[in-house]
């Protein structure tokens, strides 16, 4: 047995490579980033090329993957949960067109919001789109399931949603790989009746999708991801995805013997769930994420024999663990050591020497001269500017929202209206908002913090920076005299303050690009240069 130690995210990547993908399409986002990174680092060992550079955003990624599938090849598309909001239009409609080559969308949810703004549950999207959803519980299952999901996708001609959560994505375990499969040949599908979603085609395709649902249920009933761990007693447990691990941990540690049904493929396997409900008086439903199926099983008028997140047996929010599951199963809490009072929080911070620090210092100086000083910001390292000592930004909602929210506030009459956005976030979803602002001549000042990378997720290449960012802004219509570049360094502080003051005073759209490479990326490049002279 030859096991390699892989993160859950990496197990998906290896599974996809071994399933014969011809491409991966993704935008970085914790906890999904490592899937694509693994493919980027390991594709060279493959007999056939695998395309893997980063996409501008999740929507472009999804559509490109759909195009690769249309051409007959297998494609993986990966994103974090909120990325699926961006790609939702393409995702939902690809269930209507169906696919040709296998198409698997791996979505990593972040319950407990370790690195996210919400803990939305992607299984809801899978149900919404009416496609099969698979939710493996271990790193080995992630590898095996990813491979199988491509076969499933091709046999059903539907995209398959693979859902995982932070804990599994970022946990290592030994994984055994199987022999790799060859890539599909180019085999483009001429099927306008499927892919031209004009109403007459869309109606037929939608009915086709509805007609497949019974078959999907039967597949779930036969899936190895759904299985019973037999037991005795009147309380049964229905454990979804990674929740199975916590339930098993408690069951073994405390010598319990309740019957347990593990769910890893959706739609739900109706028959087996009926069996469990008939053989038990009460059921504990353990889901990682929203109580999606607990709510369904409980019904609108409630069922007092079902316990879970909705009746407080398990916490309503946040990630599960074996402790919360133990309590739900009636195990008394042990006496524990406590965290001493002197232990204060240690929040993350901008790195020492980071250019964002100098950018915020200049911006704060300028903004504090106004009575109203609102700064609309975005998602990236610079979001840390919200924390002390800077307290420099006042919004962070979704990718690209800084520019558009500043525009709306400016339209309402707020002055100054300032947006701070990174280079990668700007190319992800900021450019269209800037176009809106230009078309409306809104009085906004947009600071693009160009550090030449997608830094927060670990330094992936961004889609445009430096001179290309300038060219994009020019192309969108930013006037040359209001398109400025500053170098966020201590030695440039006075000059930077002056530029920001001038542009904030201008009653129109101005863009200030604060250009300095991320110190982490710069250090890494230096190390690589030393290693390979």
């Amino acid at each position: 047995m030859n096991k390699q130690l892989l993160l859950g995210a990496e197990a998906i990547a290896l599974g996809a490579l071994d399933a014969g993908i011809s491409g991966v399409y993704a935008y970085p986002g914790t906890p999904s980033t490592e899937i694509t990174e693994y493919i980027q680092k390991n594709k060279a060992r493959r007999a056939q090329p695998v395309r893997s550079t980063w996409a501008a955003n999740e929507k472009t990624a999804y559509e490109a993957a759909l195009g690769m599938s249309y051409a007959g090849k297998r494609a993986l598309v990966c994103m974090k949960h909120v990325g699926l909001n961006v790609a939702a239009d393409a995702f939902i409609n690809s269930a209507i067109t169906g696919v040709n080559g296998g198409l698997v969308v791996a979505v990593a949810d972040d319950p407990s919001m370790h690195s996210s703004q919400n803990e939305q549950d992607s299984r809801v999207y899978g149900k919404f789109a009416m496609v099969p959803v698979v939710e493996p519980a271990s790193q080995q299952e992630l590898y095996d399931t990813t491979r199988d999901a491509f076969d499933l996708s091709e046999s059903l001609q539907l995209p398959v949603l693979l859902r995982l959560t932070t804990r599994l994505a970022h946990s290592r375990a030994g994984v055994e790989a199987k022999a790799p499969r060859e890539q599909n040949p180019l085999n483009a599908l001429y099927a306008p009746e499927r892919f031209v979603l004009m109403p007459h085609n869309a109606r037929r395709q939608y009915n086709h999708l509805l007609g497949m649902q019974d078959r999907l249920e039967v597949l779930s009933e036969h899936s190895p991801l759904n299985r019973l761990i037999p037991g005795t007693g009147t309380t049964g447990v229905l454990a979804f995805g990674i929740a199975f691990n916590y339930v098993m941990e408690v069951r073994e540690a405390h010598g319990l013997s309740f019957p347990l049904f593990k769910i890893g493929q959706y739609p739900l396997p109706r028959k087996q769930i009926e069996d469990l409900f008939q053989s038990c008086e009460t059921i504990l439903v353990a889901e990682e994420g929203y109580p999606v199926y607990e709510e369904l099983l409980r019904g609108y008028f409630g069922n007092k024999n079902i316990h879970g997140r909705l009746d407080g047996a398990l916490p309503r929010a946040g990630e599960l663990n074996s402790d919360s599951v133990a309590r739900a199963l009636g195990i008394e809490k042990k006496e524990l050591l406590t965290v001493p009072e002197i232990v204060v929080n240690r929040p993350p911070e901008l790195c020492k020497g980071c250019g964002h620090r100098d950018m915020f210092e200049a911006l704060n100086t300028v903004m504090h001269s106004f009575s109203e000083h609102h700064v609309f910001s975005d998602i990236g390292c610079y979001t840390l500017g919200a924390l002390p000592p800077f307290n420099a930004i006042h919004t962070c909602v979704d990718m690209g929202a800084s520019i558009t929210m500043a525009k709306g506030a400016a339209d309402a009459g707020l002055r100054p209206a300032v947006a701070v956005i990174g280079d990668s976030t700007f190319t992800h979803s900021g450019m269209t908002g800037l176009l809106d602002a230009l078309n409306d001549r809104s009085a906004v000042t947009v600071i693009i913090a160009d550090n030449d990378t997608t830094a927060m997720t670990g330094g992936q290449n961004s889609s445009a920076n430096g001179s290309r960012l300038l060219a994009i802004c020019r192309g969108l219509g930013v006037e040359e005299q209001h398109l400025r570049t500053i170098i966020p360094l201590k030695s440039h502080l006075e000059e930077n303050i002056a530029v920001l003051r001038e542009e904030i005073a201008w009653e129109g759209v101005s863009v200030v690009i604060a250009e300095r490479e991320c110190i982490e990326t710069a250090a890494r490049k230096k190390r690589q240069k030393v290693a390979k002279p």
Partner: protein
Amino acid sequence: MQTNIILAGVGGQGILTIAAVIDLAALKCGLTIRQAEVHGMSQRGGAVQSHLRISDHEIFSDLIAEGSADLILSVEPLEALRYLPFLSPEGRVVTATEPFINMESYPAMEEITRELHRTNQPLLVNATELAREAGSARTSNMVMLGAAAPFTGIAPEELESAIGQLFGAKGEEIVAMNIRAFRKGEALSQLQATAS
């Protein structure tokens, strides 16, 4: 056997290098491993931890249950205290003593030491100093691994051979320096065991 280890530190201090060495050694010994890491926002100077579980049978949960960690291995003294509810009554704390101060309200060192001494035979390691003696302050993580080695359930030779494997690409000198650091930590640990 089963060992539950919580690795603690501040983002950027490199606790995952310690985890990588233990992982390699455990894998070579044919043991099962689960190692949950923190990626993303906290890596920027925030509190980070890794749950590392090693066993000779199947492990289900990636996370360690409360009150069941055999070892808290921390590369920063305050961070060692953050995870005390995970420590089992017999569990041990092994921590570096050099504080990493990046917030205003960092408590006084005497208070931290007092709290550490409330745990079961804590091992406080002047890791930076020992690392310098080994050749470079950058080997302090290997000093810490050496100090914690007796509590991992893995033979020190296996850990040393994993150090060789992990740092091998950087050359013999780097490997030798890291092994020297490991041994300094291990010696300190043995000294404490003999004294108590």
